[in-house]
Protein backbone atom coordinates (compact mmCIF):
# COMPACT_ATOMS: atom_id res chain seq x y z
CA UNK A 1 0.00 0.00 0.00
CA UNK A 2 1.38 3.35 -1.01
CA UNK A 3 -0.15 6.10 1.05
CA UNK A 4 0.90 9.67 0.55
CA UNK A 5 1.85 11.40 3.75
CA UNK A 6 -0.69 14.01 4.68
CA UNK A 7 -0.26 16.22 7.70
CA UNK A 8 -3.36 18.36 7.19
CA UNK A 9 -5.15 16.70 10.09
CA UNK A 10 -2.97 18.62 12.54
CA UNK A 11 -4.63 21.78 11.34
CA UNK A 12 -7.98 20.61 12.69
CA UNK A 13 -6.53 19.84 16.10
CA UNK A 14 -5.29 23.41 16.61
CA UNK A 15 -8.51 24.71 18.27
CA UNK A 16 -8.29 21.92 20.85
CA UNK A 17 -4.67 22.75 21.57
CA UNK A 18 -5.53 26.42 22.07
CA UNK A 19 -8.46 25.58 24.34
CA UNK A 20 -6.51 23.11 26.46
CA UNK A 21 -3.63 25.57 26.68
CA UNK A 22 -5.89 28.25 28.11
CA UNK A 23 -7.92 26.18 30.53
CA UNK A 24 -5.29 23.69 31.68
CA UNK A 25 -1.70 24.15 30.60
CA UNK A 26 -1.32 27.88 31.24
CA UNK A 27 -2.86 27.92 34.77
CA UNK A 28 -1.00 24.75 35.70
CA UNK A 29 2.31 26.13 34.51
CA UNK A 30 1.67 29.36 36.46
CA UNK A 31 1.30 27.24 39.58
CA UNK A 32 4.47 25.33 38.72
CA UNK A 33 6.17 28.66 38.25
CA UNK A 34 5.11 29.90 41.71
CA UNK A 35 6.10 26.64 43.37
CA UNK A 36 9.79 27.11 42.63
CA UNK A 37 10.01 30.80 43.51
CA UNK A 38 9.46 33.30 46.27
CA UNK A 39 7.37 36.31 45.39
CA UNK A 40 7.13 39.64 47.17
CA UNK A 41 4.39 41.11 45.03
CA UNK A 42 4.82 43.69 42.26
CA UNK A 43 6.11 40.89 40.03
CA UNK A 44 9.37 40.39 41.89
CA UNK A 45 10.43 36.75 41.97
CA UNK A 46 13.39 34.94 43.55
CA UNK A 47 14.39 31.35 42.70
CA UNK A 48 13.92 28.93 45.58
CA UNK A 49 14.43 25.53 43.93
CA UNK A 50 12.68 22.68 45.70
CA UNK A 51 12.52 24.41 49.07
CA UNK A 52 8.73 24.73 49.22
CA UNK A 53 8.22 21.10 48.27
CA UNK A 54 10.57 19.94 51.06
CA UNK A 55 8.89 22.24 53.53
CA UNK A 56 5.40 21.03 52.67
CA UNK A 57 6.38 17.35 52.71
CA UNK A 58 7.91 17.78 56.16
CA UNK A 59 5.26 20.09 57.58
CA UNK A 60 3.08 18.72 60.35
CA UNK A 61 0.24 20.92 59.25
CA UNK A 62 0.20 19.23 55.83
CA UNK A 63 0.43 15.77 57.37
CA UNK A 64 -2.49 16.58 59.65
CA UNK A 65 -4.79 17.84 56.92
CA UNK A 66 -3.78 15.02 54.58
CA UNK A 67 -4.55 12.55 57.37
CA UNK A 68 -7.97 14.11 57.96
CA UNK A 69 -8.62 14.04 54.25
CA UNK A 70 -7.72 10.37 53.86
CA UNK A 71 -9.89 9.36 56.84
CA UNK A 72 -12.79 11.45 55.56
CA UNK A 73 -12.65 9.98 52.05
CA UNK A 74 -12.29 6.47 53.42
CA UNK A 75 -15.38 6.85 55.62
CA UNK A 76 -17.33 8.41 52.76
CA UNK A 77 -16.56 5.52 50.40
CA UNK A 78 -17.23 2.99 53.14
CA UNK A 79 -20.70 4.40 53.77
CA UNK A 80 -21.82 5.59 50.35
CA UNK A 81 -20.93 2.56 48.24
CA UNK A 82 -22.77 -0.15 50.21
CA UNK A 83 -25.62 2.26 50.96
CA UNK A 84 -25.89 3.33 47.31
CA UNK A 85 -25.86 -0.26 46.02
CA UNK A 86 -28.36 -1.24 48.70
CA UNK A 87 -30.79 1.52 47.75
CA UNK A 88 -30.40 0.70 44.04
CA UNK A 89 -31.24 -2.95 44.74
CA UNK A 90 -34.47 -2.02 46.49
CA UNK A 91 -35.61 0.45 43.85
CA UNK A 92 -38.50 -0.73 41.62
CA UNK A 93 -37.65 -1.86 38.10
CA UNK A 94 -40.92 -0.94 36.45
CA UNK A 95 -44.13 0.94 37.07
CA UNK A 96 -44.84 4.40 38.38
CA UNK A 97 -42.29 3.97 41.18
CA UNK A 98 -39.39 4.26 38.73
CA UNK A 99 -39.72 7.95 37.78
CA UNK A 100 -40.65 8.87 41.37
CA UNK A 101 -37.53 7.20 42.74
CA UNK A 102 -35.28 8.58 40.03
CA UNK A 103 -36.46 12.14 40.58
CA UNK A 104 -36.17 11.83 44.36
CA UNK A 105 -32.67 10.46 43.92
CA UNK A 106 -31.59 13.23 41.56
CA UNK A 107 -32.81 16.06 43.82
CA UNK A 108 -29.78 16.32 46.12
CA UNK A 109 -27.46 16.30 43.10
CA UNK A 110 -29.21 19.34 41.62
CA UNK A 111 -28.70 21.61 44.62
CA UNK A 112 -25.73 24.02 44.41
CA UNK A 113 -22.93 22.98 46.73
CA UNK A 114 -22.81 26.12 48.84
CA UNK A 115 -26.58 25.92 49.28
CA UNK A 116 -26.12 22.38 50.60
CA UNK A 117 -23.58 23.72 53.10
CA UNK A 118 -25.86 26.56 54.19
CA UNK A 119 -28.88 24.23 54.44
CA UNK A 120 -27.04 21.83 56.68
CA UNK A 121 -25.55 24.63 58.73
CA UNK A 122 -29.01 25.91 59.59
CA UNK A 123 -30.46 22.39 59.87
CA UNK A 124 -27.78 21.38 62.39
CA UNK A 125 -27.63 24.51 64.56
CA UNK A 126 -27.89 23.24 68.16
CA UNK A 127 -30.40 25.86 69.28
CA UNK A 128 -32.74 26.52 66.35
CA UNK A 129 -31.85 23.86 63.73
CA UNK A 130 -34.21 20.93 63.40
CA UNK A 131 -31.47 18.30 63.59
CA UNK A 132 -29.43 20.02 66.32
CA UNK A 133 -32.43 20.89 68.41
CA UNK A 134 -33.95 17.41 68.13
CA UNK A 135 -30.70 15.71 69.06
CA UNK A 136 -30.29 17.94 72.09
CA UNK A 137 -33.87 17.52 73.19
CA UNK A 138 -33.56 13.72 73.23
CA UNK A 139 -30.51 13.96 75.45
CA UNK A 140 -27.48 14.13 73.15
CA UNK A 141 -25.00 16.85 73.87
CA UNK A 142 -24.70 17.94 70.26
CA UNK A 143 -22.97 21.07 69.03
CA UNK A 144 -21.14 20.87 65.72
CA UNK A 145 -19.64 24.32 66.08
CA UNK A 146 -17.78 23.41 69.25
CA UNK A 147 -17.22 19.65 69.37
CA UNK A 148 -15.01 18.09 66.71
CA UNK A 149 -16.80 14.73 66.79
CA UNK A 150 -20.10 16.43 66.11
CA UNK A 151 -18.54 18.48 63.33
CA UNK A 152 -17.26 15.30 61.65
CA UNK A 153 -20.60 13.58 62.13
CA UNK A 154 -22.44 16.49 60.53
CA UNK A 155 -20.01 16.84 57.62
CA UNK A 156 -20.18 13.13 56.83
CA UNK A 157 -23.97 13.07 57.15
CA UNK A 158 -24.19 16.04 54.81
CA UNK A 159 -21.96 14.39 52.22
CA UNK A 160 -23.84 11.12 52.46
CA UNK A 161 -27.10 13.01 51.93
CA UNK A 162 -25.66 14.97 49.01
CA UNK A 163 -23.75 12.31 47.10
CA UNK A 164 -25.08 8.81 47.84
CA UNK A 165 -27.61 9.41 45.04
CA UNK A 166 -24.81 9.38 42.51
CA UNK A 167 -23.82 5.86 43.54
CA UNK A 168 -27.49 4.87 43.57
CA UNK A 169 -28.11 6.14 40.03
CA UNK A 170 -24.98 4.52 38.63
CA UNK A 171 -25.69 1.18 40.34
CA UNK A 172 -29.31 1.31 39.23
CA UNK A 173 -28.23 1.79 35.63
CA UNK A 174 -25.82 -1.13 36.00
CA UNK A 175 -28.49 -3.37 37.51
CA UNK A 176 -30.99 -2.52 34.81
CA UNK A 177 -28.60 -3.58 32.08
CA UNK A 178 -28.59 -7.16 33.37
CA UNK A 179 -30.79 -9.35 31.16
CA UNK A 180 -33.65 -11.12 32.97
CA UNK A 181 -32.34 -14.45 31.62
CA UNK A 182 -29.45 -14.23 34.12
CA UNK A 183 -31.88 -14.20 37.02
CA UNK A 184 -33.83 -17.10 35.52
CA UNK A 185 -30.67 -19.13 35.01
CA UNK A 186 -29.72 -18.50 38.63
CA UNK A 187 -33.21 -19.46 39.77
CA UNK A 188 -32.95 -22.76 37.89
CA UNK A 189 -29.57 -23.39 39.55
CA UNK A 190 -31.19 -22.75 42.91
CA UNK A 191 -28.96 -19.80 43.70
CA UNK A 192 -29.70 -17.80 46.86
CA UNK A 193 -30.32 -14.04 46.86
CA UNK A 194 -26.75 -13.54 48.08
CA UNK A 195 -25.36 -15.80 45.32
CA UNK A 196 -27.22 -13.76 42.74
CA UNK A 197 -25.75 -10.56 44.14
CA UNK A 198 -22.26 -11.97 44.49
CA UNK A 199 -21.97 -13.89 41.22
CA UNK A 200 -24.22 -12.00 38.82
CA UNK A 201 -25.07 -8.49 39.95
CA UNK A 202 -21.72 -7.47 41.40
CA UNK A 203 -19.62 -8.67 38.44
CA UNK A 204 -22.09 -7.14 36.01
CA UNK A 205 -21.94 -3.81 37.89
CA UNK A 206 -18.15 -3.80 37.97
CA UNK A 207 -17.70 -1.08 35.38
CA UNK A 208 -20.24 1.36 36.77
CA UNK A 209 -18.98 0.73 40.30
CA UNK A 210 -15.43 1.50 39.20
CA UNK A 211 -16.74 4.76 37.84
CA UNK A 212 -18.70 5.43 41.04
CA UNK A 213 -15.69 4.79 43.25
CA UNK A 214 -13.45 6.99 41.12
CA UNK A 215 -15.94 9.86 41.07
CA UNK A 216 -16.70 9.63 44.76
CA UNK A 217 -13.01 9.35 45.61
CA UNK A 218 -12.07 12.42 43.59
CA UNK A 219 -15.00 14.53 44.75
CA UNK A 220 -14.66 13.67 48.42
CA UNK A 221 -10.88 13.98 48.35
CA UNK A 222 -11.20 17.49 46.92
CA UNK A 223 -14.22 18.54 48.99
CA UNK A 224 -14.25 22.27 49.68
CA UNK A 225 -17.48 24.24 49.34
CA UNK A 226 -19.75 22.31 51.68
CA UNK A 227 -17.43 22.10 54.74
CA UNK A 228 -16.32 25.68 54.07
CA UNK A 229 -19.90 26.87 54.50
CA UNK A 230 -20.82 24.35 57.21
CA UNK A 231 -17.85 24.40 59.57
CA UNK A 232 -15.21 26.57 57.93
CA UNK A 233 -12.73 23.84 58.88
CA UNK A 234 -13.52 24.12 62.56
CA UNK A 235 -13.88 23.81 65.42
CA UNK A 236 -10.15 24.55 65.57
CA UNK A 237 -8.71 22.53 62.72
CA UNK A 238 -10.97 19.52 63.26
CA UNK A 239 -12.50 19.53 59.78
CA UNK A 240 -9.70 21.38 58.05
CA UNK A 241 -9.45 19.20 54.93
CA UNK A 242 -6.73 19.53 52.30
CA UNK A 243 -8.43 22.01 50.01
CA UNK A 244 -9.63 24.17 52.91
CA UNK A 245 -6.09 24.22 54.24
CA UNK A 246 -4.73 25.02 50.79
CA UNK A 247 -7.01 28.01 50.36
CA UNK A 248 -6.13 29.28 53.84
CA UNK A 249 -2.46 29.07 52.97
CA UNK A 250 -2.78 30.68 49.56
CA UNK A 251 -5.37 33.39 50.15
CA UNK A 252 -5.38 33.73 53.96
CA UNK A 253 -1.64 33.87 54.59
CA UNK A 254 -0.73 34.73 51.01
CA UNK A 255 2.08 32.14 51.03
CA UNK A 256 1.89 31.65 47.29
CA UNK A 257 5.07 29.57 46.91
CA UNK A 258 4.29 26.89 49.51
CA UNK A 259 0.62 26.89 48.45
CA UNK A 260 1.64 26.27 44.84
CA UNK A 261 3.92 23.42 45.91
CA UNK A 262 1.09 21.97 48.01
CA UNK A 263 -1.32 22.19 45.06
CA UNK A 264 1.05 20.19 42.90
CA UNK A 265 1.58 17.54 45.58
CA UNK A 266 -2.19 17.39 46.11
CA UNK A 267 -2.76 17.03 42.38
CA UNK A 268 -0.18 14.27 42.07
CA UNK A 269 -1.70 12.33 44.99
CA UNK A 270 -5.16 12.40 43.36
CA UNK A 271 -3.73 11.41 40.00
CA UNK A 272 -1.64 8.59 41.46
CA UNK A 273 -4.45 7.06 43.52
CA UNK A 274 -6.88 7.23 40.59
CA UNK A 275 -4.35 5.57 38.30
CA UNK A 276 -3.52 2.79 40.74
CA UNK A 277 -7.15 2.17 41.45
CA UNK A 278 -8.20 2.17 37.82
CA UNK A 279 -5.36 -0.16 36.85
CA UNK A 280 -6.33 -2.67 39.53
CA UNK A 281 -10.04 -2.59 38.73
CA UNK A 282 -9.56 -2.89 34.99
CA UNK A 283 -6.83 -5.53 35.18
CA UNK A 284 -9.08 -8.25 33.79
CA UNK A 285 -10.88 -6.14 31.24
CA UNK A 286 -10.26 -5.72 27.57
CA UNK A 287 -8.97 -9.21 26.85
CA UNK A 288 -12.07 -10.43 25.11
Amino acid at each position, binding site marked *: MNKTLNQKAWFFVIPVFVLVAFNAAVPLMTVVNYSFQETFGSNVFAWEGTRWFKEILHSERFHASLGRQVIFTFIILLIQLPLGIGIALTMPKKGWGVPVCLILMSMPLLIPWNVVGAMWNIFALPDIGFLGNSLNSIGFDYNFTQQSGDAWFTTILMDVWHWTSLVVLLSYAGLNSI*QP*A*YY*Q*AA*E*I*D*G*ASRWDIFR*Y*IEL*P*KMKKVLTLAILLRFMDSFMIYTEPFVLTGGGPGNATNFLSLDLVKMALGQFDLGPAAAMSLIYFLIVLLICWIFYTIMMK*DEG*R*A
Partner: protein
Amino acid sequence: MSLELKDVEKKVGIETHIHSTNLKLEKNTINVLLGSTLAGKTTLMQIMAGLDKPTTGEIWFNGENVTGKEVQKRNCSMVYQQFINYPNFTVFENIASPLKITGIKTEEIKERVGKVAELLKLSAMLNKKPDELSGGQQQRTALARALVKDSDLILLDEPLANLDFKLREELREELPKLFEDRDCIVVYATTEPQDALMIGGNTATLLEGKVVQYGKTLDVYSKPENLISARVFSDPPMNIAEINKSGEIFKIEDNNVEWKSNLKIKDGKYKIGIRPHNITTYKEGNNSVEINGKVLISELSGSESLIHFTNGNLNWVSLSNGIQSKNIGEDTKLYMNIDEFLYFDQNNRLVNHG
Protein backbone atom coordinates in the same frame (compact mmCIF):
# COMPACT_ATOMS: atom_id res chain seq x y z
CA MET B 1 -41.59 -39.84 31.67
CA SER B 2 -43.82 -37.29 30.04
CA LEU B 3 -44.67 -33.64 30.27
CA GLU B 4 -48.27 -32.70 29.79
CA LEU B 5 -49.91 -29.31 29.57
CA LYS B 6 -53.61 -29.49 30.33
CA ASP B 7 -55.74 -26.54 29.24
CA VAL B 8 -52.89 -24.19 30.05
CA GLU B 9 -53.70 -20.55 29.56
CA LYS B 10 -51.62 -17.46 30.33
CA LYS B 11 -53.02 -13.98 30.66
CA VAL B 12 -51.11 -10.85 31.59
CA GLY B 13 -53.53 -8.07 32.41
CA ILE B 14 -56.12 -8.12 29.65
CA GLU B 15 -53.75 -9.65 27.11
CA THR B 16 -53.80 -13.37 26.45
CA HIS B 17 -50.25 -14.60 25.87
CA ILE B 18 -51.11 -18.29 25.62
CA HIS B 19 -54.53 -19.50 24.55
CA SER B 20 -55.82 -22.70 26.07
CA THR B 21 -53.19 -25.27 25.16
CA ASN B 22 -53.04 -29.04 25.44
CA LEU B 23 -49.73 -30.65 24.68
CA LYS B 24 -48.16 -33.95 25.65
CA LEU B 25 -44.42 -34.43 25.25
CA GLU B 26 -43.00 -37.95 25.62
CA LYS B 27 -39.62 -38.91 27.03
CA ASN B 28 -36.52 -39.20 24.85
CA THR B 29 -37.93 -36.79 22.32
CA ILE B 30 -36.78 -33.50 20.93
CA ASN B 31 -39.70 -31.17 20.53
CA VAL B 32 -39.43 -28.08 18.41
CA LEU B 33 -41.64 -25.08 19.14
CA LEU B 34 -41.81 -23.33 15.79
CA GLY B 35 -43.25 -19.86 15.45
CA SER B 36 -42.39 -16.26 14.76
CA THR B 37 -41.42 -13.81 17.50
CA LEU B 38 -44.25 -13.16 19.98
CA ALA B 39 -45.88 -16.48 19.06
CA GLY B 40 -45.57 -17.47 22.73
CA LYS B 41 -42.61 -19.85 22.54
CA THR B 42 -40.72 -18.33 25.46
CA THR B 43 -43.81 -18.00 27.64
CA LEU B 44 -44.69 -21.62 26.98
CA MET B 45 -41.18 -22.73 27.93
CA GLN B 46 -41.21 -20.69 31.10
CA ILE B 47 -44.48 -22.29 32.07
CA MET B 48 -43.02 -25.74 31.33
CA ALA B 49 -39.97 -24.95 33.47
CA GLY B 50 -41.93 -23.47 36.34
CA LEU B 51 -40.39 -20.01 35.98
CA ASP B 52 -43.87 -18.73 35.27
CA LYS B 53 -47.26 -19.96 36.39
CA PRO B 54 -50.18 -20.49 34.02
CA THR B 55 -53.27 -18.39 34.73
CA THR B 56 -55.42 -21.49 34.42
CA GLY B 57 -54.68 -25.12 33.64
CA GLU B 58 -52.26 -27.71 34.96
CA ILE B 59 -48.82 -29.06 34.20
CA TRP B 60 -48.23 -32.74 34.81
CA PHE B 61 -44.82 -34.32 34.92
CA ASN B 62 -44.41 -38.09 35.24
CA GLY B 63 -48.00 -38.38 36.36
CA GLU B 64 -47.52 -35.77 39.06
CA ASN B 65 -49.21 -32.38 39.08
CA VAL B 66 -46.29 -29.90 39.23
CA THR B 67 -48.23 -26.73 38.47
CA GLY B 68 -47.12 -24.81 41.54
CA LYS B 69 -43.76 -26.53 42.05
CA GLU B 70 -40.71 -24.26 42.08
CA VAL B 71 -38.23 -24.46 39.27
CA GLN B 72 -35.33 -25.54 41.54
CA LYS B 73 -37.23 -28.66 42.56
CA ARG B 74 -38.11 -29.71 39.03
CA ASN B 75 -34.71 -30.79 37.72
CA CYS B 76 -34.76 -28.87 34.50
CA SER B 77 -32.21 -26.74 32.70
CA MET B 78 -32.49 -23.97 30.18
CA VAL B 79 -30.33 -22.36 27.51
CA TYR B 80 -31.14 -18.90 26.26
CA GLN B 81 -30.70 -16.90 23.10
CA GLN B 82 -28.25 -14.64 24.94
CA PHE B 83 -25.12 -16.38 26.17
CA ILE B 84 -25.86 -16.67 29.87
CA ASN B 85 -22.90 -17.69 32.03
CA TYR B 86 -21.60 -16.50 35.37
CA PRO B 87 -19.26 -13.68 34.31
CA ASN B 88 -16.46 -14.15 36.82
CA PHE B 89 -16.44 -17.95 36.94
CA THR B 90 -14.12 -19.94 34.72
CA VAL B 91 -15.64 -22.26 32.15
CA PHE B 92 -15.06 -25.17 34.53
CA GLU B 93 -16.79 -23.41 37.43
CA ASN B 94 -19.61 -22.37 35.14
CA ILE B 95 -20.24 -25.91 33.96
CA ALA B 96 -19.98 -27.18 37.53
CA SER B 97 -22.34 -24.54 38.92
CA PRO B 98 -25.59 -26.56 38.65
CA LEU B 99 -23.93 -29.48 40.44
CA LYS B 100 -22.60 -27.56 43.42
CA ILE B 101 -25.88 -27.23 45.26
CA THR B 102 -26.70 -30.90 44.70
CA GLY B 103 -23.95 -31.99 47.11
CA ILE B 104 -22.10 -34.23 44.66
CA LYS B 105 -18.47 -35.03 45.55
CA THR B 106 -15.72 -32.89 44.05
CA GLU B 107 -14.18 -35.79 42.15
CA GLU B 108 -17.43 -36.74 40.53
CA ILE B 109 -18.05 -33.11 39.59
CA LYS B 110 -14.63 -33.04 37.94
CA GLU B 111 -15.34 -36.19 36.03
CA ARG B 112 -18.75 -35.09 34.82
CA VAL B 113 -17.59 -31.61 33.83
CA GLY B 114 -14.68 -33.22 31.96
CA LYS B 115 -17.02 -35.48 30.01
CA VAL B 116 -19.44 -32.73 29.05
CA ALA B 117 -16.60 -30.38 28.16
CA GLU B 118 -15.17 -32.99 25.82
CA LEU B 119 -18.55 -33.54 24.22
CA LEU B 120 -18.85 -29.82 23.55
CA LYS B 121 -15.19 -29.33 22.58
CA LEU B 122 -14.44 -27.09 25.54
CA SER B 123 -11.68 -29.16 27.17
CA ALA B 124 -8.96 -26.72 26.15
CA MET B 125 -10.64 -23.70 27.68
CA LEU B 126 -11.79 -24.89 31.07
CA ASN B 127 -9.67 -22.27 32.84
CA LYS B 128 -10.82 -19.33 30.78
CA LYS B 129 -13.51 -16.84 31.68
CA PRO B 130 -16.60 -16.47 29.47
CA ASP B 131 -15.58 -13.06 28.12
CA GLU B 132 -12.37 -14.56 26.75
CA LEU B 133 -14.35 -16.94 24.55
CA SER B 134 -16.00 -16.52 21.18
CA GLY B 135 -19.79 -16.36 20.99
CA GLY B 136 -19.99 -19.98 19.87
CA GLN B 137 -17.83 -21.15 22.77
CA GLN B 138 -19.87 -19.09 25.24
CA GLN B 139 -23.03 -20.78 24.02
CA ARG B 140 -21.31 -24.18 24.18
CA THR B 141 -20.50 -23.42 27.82
CA ALA B 142 -24.15 -22.57 28.46
CA LEU B 143 -25.16 -25.83 26.75
CA ALA B 144 -22.65 -27.73 28.86
CA ARG B 145 -24.18 -26.22 31.99
CA ALA B 146 -27.55 -27.51 30.86
CA LEU B 147 -26.23 -30.98 30.07
CA VAL B 148 -24.03 -31.59 33.10
CA LYS B 149 -26.83 -32.38 35.47
CA ASP B 150 -29.16 -35.15 34.44
CA SER B 151 -32.14 -32.94 33.85
CA ASP B 152 -35.51 -34.44 33.10
CA LEU B 153 -36.39 -31.44 31.00
CA ILE B 154 -33.97 -29.39 28.88
CA LEU B 155 -35.31 -26.18 27.39
CA LEU B 156 -33.47 -24.43 24.58
CA ASP B 157 -34.83 -20.98 23.80
CA GLU B 158 -33.52 -20.01 20.36
CA PRO B 159 -30.01 -21.05 21.35
CA LEU B 160 -28.53 -20.41 17.91
CA ALA B 161 -30.18 -17.07 17.13
CA ASN B 162 -27.25 -14.93 18.24
CA LEU B 163 -24.57 -16.96 16.50
CA ASP B 164 -23.17 -16.20 13.09
CA PHE B 165 -24.08 -18.42 10.19
CA LYS B 166 -21.17 -20.86 10.28
CA LEU B 167 -21.19 -21.47 14.03
CA ARG B 168 -24.91 -21.88 13.86
CA GLU B 169 -24.76 -24.62 11.22
CA GLU B 170 -22.00 -26.39 13.09
CA LEU B 171 -23.82 -26.39 16.41
CA ARG B 172 -27.15 -27.22 14.82
CA GLU B 173 -25.66 -30.41 13.39
CA GLU B 174 -24.27 -31.40 16.78
CA LEU B 175 -27.39 -30.65 18.80
CA PRO B 176 -29.51 -33.75 18.06
CA LYS B 177 -26.48 -35.97 18.77
CA LEU B 178 -25.97 -34.36 22.17
CA PHE B 179 -29.40 -35.46 23.31
CA GLU B 180 -29.44 -38.84 21.58
CA ASP B 181 -28.93 -41.18 24.51
CA ARG B 182 -30.30 -39.02 27.26
CA ASP B 183 -33.28 -39.91 29.32
CA CYS B 184 -34.99 -36.57 29.07
CA ILE B 185 -37.42 -34.36 27.23
CA VAL B 186 -35.86 -31.66 25.09
CA VAL B 187 -37.79 -28.60 23.99
CA TYR B 188 -36.25 -26.37 21.35
CA ALA B 189 -37.78 -23.04 20.38
CA THR B 190 -36.96 -21.48 17.04
CA THR B 191 -38.32 -19.07 14.46
CA GLU B 192 -36.79 -20.99 11.57
CA PRO B 193 -38.48 -23.90 9.77
CA GLN B 194 -35.05 -25.10 8.67
CA ASP B 195 -33.99 -25.61 12.29
CA ALA B 196 -37.02 -27.80 12.89
CA LEU B 197 -36.33 -29.95 9.83
CA MET B 198 -32.67 -30.42 10.69
CA ILE B 199 -33.35 -31.28 14.30
CA GLY B 200 -36.17 -33.66 13.50
CA GLY B 201 -38.15 -35.14 16.37
CA ASN B 202 -41.53 -33.55 16.90
CA THR B 203 -42.68 -30.10 16.03
CA ALA B 204 -45.41 -27.87 17.38
CA THR B 205 -46.31 -24.94 15.16
CA LEU B 206 -47.34 -21.82 17.06
CA LEU B 207 -49.16 -18.68 16.02
CA GLU B 208 -50.23 -15.84 18.28
CA GLY B 209 -50.19 -17.86 21.47
CA LYS B 210 -51.88 -20.93 20.02
CA VAL B 211 -50.44 -24.34 19.28
CA VAL B 212 -51.67 -24.93 15.76
CA GLN B 213 -50.42 -28.47 15.23
CA TYR B 214 -48.20 -30.95 17.02
CA GLY B 215 -46.75 -34.13 15.60
CA LYS B 216 -43.68 -35.71 14.00
CA THR B 217 -41.69 -32.94 12.33
CA LEU B 218 -41.85 -34.47 8.86
CA ASP B 219 -45.58 -35.11 9.16
CA VAL B 220 -46.24 -31.54 10.23
CA TYR B 221 -44.16 -30.36 7.31
CA SER B 222 -45.61 -32.56 4.60
CA LYS B 223 -49.17 -32.82 5.92
CA PRO B 224 -49.96 -29.57 7.70
CA GLU B 225 -53.41 -29.90 9.24
CA ASN B 226 -54.35 -26.47 8.06
CA LEU B 227 -53.18 -23.43 6.18
CA ILE B 228 -51.92 -21.65 9.30
CA SER B 229 -49.63 -24.50 10.25
CA ALA B 230 -48.40 -24.69 6.66
CA ARG B 231 -47.57 -20.99 6.63
CA VAL B 232 -45.72 -21.13 9.94
CA PHE B 233 -43.70 -24.06 8.60
CA SER B 234 -42.58 -22.43 5.37
CA ASP B 235 -39.65 -20.18 4.70
CA PRO B 236 -39.58 -18.42 2.26
CA PRO B 237 -43.34 -17.85 2.71
CA MET B 238 -45.80 -20.25 1.14
CA ASN B 239 -47.57 -19.17 -2.07
CA ILE B 240 -51.33 -19.21 -1.71
CA ALA B 241 -54.14 -18.85 -4.25
CA GLU B 242 -57.87 -19.40 -4.51
CA ILE B 243 -58.81 -22.13 -6.97
CA ASN B 244 -61.92 -23.60 -8.54
CA LYS B 245 -62.42 -27.30 -9.11
CA SER B 246 -64.86 -28.74 -11.55
CA GLY B 247 -64.48 -32.35 -12.57
CA GLU B 248 -60.83 -33.01 -13.20
CA ILE B 249 -60.02 -29.40 -13.98
CA PHE B 250 -58.43 -27.18 -11.34
CA LYS B 251 -58.14 -23.50 -12.11
CA ILE B 252 -56.56 -20.57 -10.26
CA GLU B 253 -59.24 -17.88 -9.96
CA ASP B 254 -56.96 -14.90 -10.54
CA ASN B 255 -55.59 -16.07 -13.88
CA ASN B 256 -55.94 -18.75 -16.48
CA VAL B 257 -53.53 -21.27 -15.06
CA GLU B 258 -55.20 -24.66 -14.92
CA TRP B 259 -54.28 -28.30 -14.55
CA LYS B 260 -55.83 -31.73 -14.42
CA SER B 261 -55.80 -34.00 -11.45
CA ASN B 262 -57.72 -37.05 -10.36
CA LEU B 263 -57.77 -35.87 -6.74
CA LYS B 264 -60.99 -37.11 -5.17
CA ILE B 265 -62.56 -34.00 -3.68
CA LYS B 266 -65.91 -32.35 -4.24
CA ASP B 267 -66.25 -29.67 -6.88
CA GLY B 268 -66.06 -26.14 -5.59
CA LYS B 269 -63.71 -23.52 -4.26
CA TYR B 270 -60.43 -24.35 -2.53
CA LYS B 271 -57.15 -22.74 -1.59
CA ILE B 272 -53.82 -24.10 -2.66
CA GLY B 273 -50.52 -23.73 -0.88
CA ILE B 274 -47.34 -24.14 -2.92
CA ARG B 275 -43.93 -24.13 -1.28
CA PRO B 276 -41.45 -21.91 -3.15
CA HIS B 277 -39.21 -24.84 -4.07
CA ASN B 278 -42.10 -26.42 -5.93
CA ILE B 279 -42.08 -23.55 -8.41
CA THR B 280 -38.91 -23.72 -10.50
CA THR B 281 -37.46 -22.37 -13.71
CA TYR B 282 -37.15 -25.93 -14.98
CA LYS B 283 -39.54 -28.88 -15.05
CA GLU B 284 -39.42 -31.05 -11.99
CA GLY B 285 -41.42 -34.19 -11.24
CA ASN B 286 -43.73 -35.95 -13.68
CA ASN B 287 -46.61 -33.54 -13.54
CA SER B 288 -45.88 -29.89 -13.88
CA VAL B 289 -47.86 -26.95 -15.05
CA GLU B 290 -46.55 -23.81 -16.64
CA ILE B 291 -47.06 -20.34 -15.18
CA ASN B 292 -45.97 -17.01 -16.60
CA GLY B 293 -44.42 -14.48 -14.28
CA LYS B 294 -43.09 -10.97 -14.39
CA VAL B 295 -39.86 -10.86 -12.35
CA LEU B 296 -39.98 -8.44 -9.38
CA ILE B 297 -36.59 -9.26 -8.00
CA SER B 298 -34.20 -12.18 -8.07
CA GLU B 299 -31.90 -13.13 -5.19
CA LEU B 300 -28.99 -15.40 -6.01
CA SER B 301 -27.08 -17.27 -3.34
CA GLY B 302 -25.01 -19.43 -5.67
CA SER B 303 -26.55 -22.75 -4.92
CA GLU B 304 -30.10 -21.41 -5.02
CA SER B 305 -32.02 -18.61 -6.71
CA LEU B 306 -35.07 -16.92 -5.24
CA ILE B 307 -37.25 -15.30 -7.87
CA HIS B 308 -40.13 -13.11 -6.77
CA PHE B 309 -42.67 -12.71 -9.53
CA THR B 310 -46.19 -11.48 -10.19
CA ASN B 311 -48.95 -13.07 -12.20
CA GLY B 312 -52.24 -11.21 -12.19
CA ASN B 313 -52.97 -10.39 -8.56
CA LEU B 314 -50.59 -13.03 -7.30
CA ASN B 315 -47.28 -12.04 -5.78
CA TRP B 316 -45.29 -15.25 -5.46
CA VAL B 317 -41.84 -16.58 -4.69
CA SER B 318 -40.05 -19.39 -6.46
CA LEU B 319 -36.93 -21.22 -5.39
CA SER B 320 -34.75 -22.94 -7.97
CA ASN B 321 -31.43 -24.70 -7.82
CA GLY B 322 -28.28 -23.10 -9.17
CA ILE B 323 -27.93 -19.63 -10.60
CA GLN B 324 -31.03 -18.57 -12.50
CA SER B 325 -30.27 -15.04 -13.49
CA LYS B 326 -33.34 -12.95 -14.34
CA ASN B 327 -33.72 -9.26 -15.01
CA ILE B 328 -36.22 -7.15 -13.14
CA GLY B 329 -39.40 -6.79 -15.20
CA GLU B 330 -38.52 -9.73 -17.43
CA ASP B 331 -41.34 -12.07 -18.47
CA THR B 332 -40.42 -15.61 -17.62
CA LYS B 333 -41.84 -19.11 -17.64
CA LEU B 334 -41.92 -21.14 -14.45
CA TYR B 335 -43.09 -24.65 -13.68
CA MET B 336 -45.16 -25.74 -10.72
CA ASN B 337 -44.92 -29.32 -9.51
CA ILE B 338 -48.59 -30.17 -9.05
CA ASP B 339 -47.89 -33.37 -7.11
CA GLU B 340 -46.68 -31.24 -4.22
CA PHE B 341 -49.68 -28.92 -4.02
CA LEU B 342 -51.48 -28.66 -0.70
CA TYR B 343 -55.26 -28.21 -1.03
CA PHE B 344 -57.24 -26.52 1.72
CA ASP B 345 -60.99 -26.16 2.03
CA GLN B 346 -62.80 -22.92 2.84
CA ASN B 347 -62.15 -23.52 6.55
CA ASN B 348 -58.42 -23.75 5.80
CA ARG B 349 -58.29 -27.51 6.55
CA LEU B 350 -56.04 -29.70 4.47
CA VAL B 351 -58.08 -31.92 2.13
CA ASN B 352 -55.42 -33.93 0.30
CA HIS B 353 -53.21 -36.21 2.33
CA GLY B 354 -50.28 -37.31 0.23
